[in-house]
């Protein structure tokens, strides 16, 4: 392996990093123009770099693996990274208005660096790289959360996110080191090879628990989710969308990969009444707690961003259900779910930002009668929320269906995780209530005459297009899941 090879494998990340530098430079040149929609040069540079990265990945230009599992770009990883690049681009497009900051260049660069971190997470098969990439992404997100300096809530959220995140990072690092101590390897494959046929070492189990705590924080699974509602609400809306969409895809993917690849031997069992120690029971309990907590807490929310935060907790629960089951279909199932969820939630935050820009808030009453004010945005929001609720033919339905199917398919028809799937579907019903309540506000309620309905600065065409694209992705992925499942590596039939 020479450096040229390495550069080729890392070319998407390099493209995005270059984009970040370019954005800073372009913005410096445009500084004289003041804030707002006129200073979009940096954004376009960033979007372009993301698109280039995605193209490279999709066309297979970066396929290959660096030694030690530092960068492993298989076909599935390539697709996930391409989607992460696109989500990054989407985040940038949604912040075209950028009313929350004067520092457009810095904002764009931070988003892009966060995107790089996420892409690296996806392709890492090495605990060190995994940790570094997670921290790169997290640090970027801490900054993005606090980017709105005029809003004390934003700063508070950033601090909270940072403190929780730092602690989780420490847990993760400590856990990883314990695993290293127990196995003497840092590559996923190496860890797996060392564990084969060995009884589970207590040290390993301790490390395992710590790693799951750390990763649980990243995916915002209960009970490690306390940062999420504040961060989602306080962060500038596009940044919140980025936290909810991009970082989730990466974190779920690495969680599935780490448990499935590295620690397959210590999975344990989470069957009702038949627990066996390993990560499966921990994940199962985490999933159960997330689904319950997230959905029940969301019932009380009157702010759309907070609502989406709790819904994110719940969705983390659904995803972890499938991860807890293990098996060869976990990666496509989790990948499909995370990707479609990311588009859905990014779009939902897009609509929230759209409404915020026009009415000055994201509480329920700001959404009243949205369908009469902006039918397209309302329709898209309808698609997103119904997809989150799991209504066919939207992507969220098939995603959840597949997750649950994988969860039940684990152990040769014994249906060991039925309790978890049952709990999952039951809490889905709860979630249906609060999504429908928001939709009621949007489609049924009358427009609140006290709300200003001025269109804000600019026509918002770019945001609207981005939202619409996300909605189309959600619909198409739901109607034809095979389009997305094949790239995610699901080609053989699940049950022979």
């Amino acid at each position, binding site marked *: 392996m020479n450096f040229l090879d390495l550069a080729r494998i890392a070319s998407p990340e390099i493209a995005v990093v270059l984009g970040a530098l370019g954005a800073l430079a372009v913005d410096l040149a445009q500084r004289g123009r003041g804030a707002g929609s006129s200073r979009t040069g940096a954004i376009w540079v960033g979007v372009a770099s993301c698109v280039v990265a995605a193209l490279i990945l999709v066309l297979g230009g970066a396929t290959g693996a660096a030694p030690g599992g530092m960068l492993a770009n298989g076909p599935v990883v390539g697709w996930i990274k391409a989607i992460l690049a696109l989500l990054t681009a989407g985040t940038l497009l949604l912040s075209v208005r950028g009313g929350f900051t004067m520092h457009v260049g810095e904002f764009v660069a931070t988003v892009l660096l966060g995107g790089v971190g996420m892409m690296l997470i996806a392709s890492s098969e090495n605990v060190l790289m995994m940790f570094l990439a997670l921290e790169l992404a997290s640090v970027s997100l801490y900054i993005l959360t606090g980017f709105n300096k005029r809003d004390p809530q934003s700063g508070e959220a950033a601090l909270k996110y940072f403190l929780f995140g730092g602690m989780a990072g420490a847990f993760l690092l400590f856990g990883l080191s314990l695993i290293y101590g127990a196995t003497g390897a840092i590559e996923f494959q190496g860890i797996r090879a060392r564990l084969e046929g060995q009884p589970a070492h207590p040290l390993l189990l301790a490390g395992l628990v710590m790693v799951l705590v750390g990763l649980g924080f990243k995916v915002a699974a209960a009970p490690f989710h306390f940062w999420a509602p504040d961060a989602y609400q306080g962060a500038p809306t596009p940044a919140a969308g980025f936290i909810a969409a991009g970082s989730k895809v990466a974190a779920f993917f690495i969680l599935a990969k780490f448990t499935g690849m590295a620690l397959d031997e210590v999975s344990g069992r989470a069957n009702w009444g038949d627990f066996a120690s390993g990560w499966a029971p921990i994940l199962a309990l985490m999933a159960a707690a997330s689904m319950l907590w997230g959905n029940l807490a969301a019932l009380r929310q009157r702010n759309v961003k907070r609502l989406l935060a709790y819904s994110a907790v719940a969705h983390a629960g659904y995803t972890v259900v499938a991860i807890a089951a293990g098996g060869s279909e976990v990666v496509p199932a989790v990948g499909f779910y995370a990707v479609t969820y990311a588009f859905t939630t990014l779009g939902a935050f897009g609509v929230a930002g759209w409404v915020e820009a026009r009415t000055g808030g994201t509480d329920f009453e700001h959404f009243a009668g949205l369908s009469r004010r902006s039918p397209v945005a309302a329709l898209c929001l309808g698609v997103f929320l119904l997809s989150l609720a799991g209504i066919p033919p939207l992507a969220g339905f098939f995603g959840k269906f597949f997750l649950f199917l994988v969860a039940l398919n684990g152990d040769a028809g014994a249906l060991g995780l039925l309790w978890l799937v049952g709990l999952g579907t039951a809490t889905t*019903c709860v979630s249906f209530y609060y999504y429908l309540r928001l939709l009621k506000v949007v489609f049924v309620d009358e427009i609140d005459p006290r709300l200003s309905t001025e269109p804000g600065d600019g026509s918002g065409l770019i945001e609207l297009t981005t939202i619409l694209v996300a909605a189309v992705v959600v619909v198409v992925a739901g109607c034809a899941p095979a389009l997305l499942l094949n790239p995610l590596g699901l080609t053989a039939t699940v049950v022979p």
Partner: protein
Amino acid sequence: MMALTLTLWISLAGAVVTAVLGRERPSVARVLALVSAMLGAGAAIFGAWQLGTPTGLVTLVRVPWIPALGIEFHLAADGVSLVLLVLTGIAAVAGILFSWNVEDRANEFFALYLMLIAGVYGVFMSFDLFQFFAFYELAIVPKYFLIAIWGSTRREYGAMKLALYSFIGSAMVLVGMIAMYVVAGLGSFDMVRLSSASLPNGFQVWAFPLMTVGFAILAGLWPFHTWAPTGHVAAPTAASMLLAGVVMKLGAYGVLRVGLMLMPDGAKLWGPALAALAVIGIVYAALVALVQQDFKFVIGYSSVSHMGFVLLGLAAANPRGVAGAILQMFSHGVIAGLLFGVVGRMVYDRTHTRELTILEGLSLARALPFAAVIFTLASMASMGLPGFSGFVAELQVLLGAWQSFPVAALAGGVGVVISVAFTLRVLQRAFLVAPGMVADGGGLTALDEHAGPITWAEKVGALLLLGTSLAVGVYPRLLMDWIDAGLQTPGFEALRTTMGWP
């Protein structure tokens, strides 16, 4: 090209076209919706005629959908489907005719309406369980908005209750469905294959009640029926016509196709329990209807009571019981649609009240003679008098019940009598008020002056439904041949064997 598949595509296309082109003028939306519904109904009837009396399952479209999971897009029809497709077509047209006066957000109204219709058509033609479920759920959301936006009394409450109940039901079905896929181990959701997979008894023991109750919630199974009266009352006329007319049938159809067809052992084990709930529903809902003061609540509870017969027939799980249940689905679809049409459109839109005590003083029979005649006939049909479709249906259900659960047959008979009583009660109080009981000056003055006499659209819609019920009642072979042939298809082989059908 099979005309039946067009029902689905026409309705979907109609929904989009109506939503887009009808934005400016309600009249355009109405006409577009009516044309779509009529084309859909035409396709259903022509397609059914095209198939004659199919002795097996006729596949219309079958393409791989999600190959990795063995999911196919599989539209097909047997005799049973044909009956319900025709019902859907007729109910759809009638519903639009009865909502000719919708002005507010008309394009959205009709688009959602057609979307709902499309989902219903889809369910009735689905022979892949995944696809079946997808269409089944597709129907939930339009229902919610139709009620929440255009409804009346406590509409948001009614709509939410309805949507949640439906959703909870489908969540139960979802769990059972995934488990069934895993347990069967066929790698396929094909319902005919699943029916012959002999699912293990241990699975059917818990999955049958889970999925059956999940579906039956939508069919108004006691004690999960409470969404129905509130939902019906809150719904705008067309929506309550559809709700009672076809949407409740989705639940019963699910019990038939998934409960009975795929899990006959479970059906055998749980049949008595299901029959007991059905009979309680029949009698209880009828008794409640007997004391309601709101006209629409009476009809709402009557729907629950009549759907109890469908469930009773299915629980009996013998040839006559099941055939009767299917015929009752059709019959109740037509008759309930008609009753809701009269109450919601002809009466309520003109008098703005549904209180029987007030209606009593209005001398509606003189003010709206057409409505009075139609409602009288519809009442007779609803009571199950011979000559109307309800009789042939209830007769077969009771016959089936005799053979399986005699006490249920007797209780069902009691239910029929109570339903006669409550139907007669509303009929007398709302329409057949003898002269001399009405104070002078009541009558027309209390009516909304703008409402005017019964319009052509209402007349056509009412006659369409009434004529259908009469035609089937007088000549049941119109549908019975389809139903009998449908129950002989391979899909029901397992049921026939398990239950020992001759």
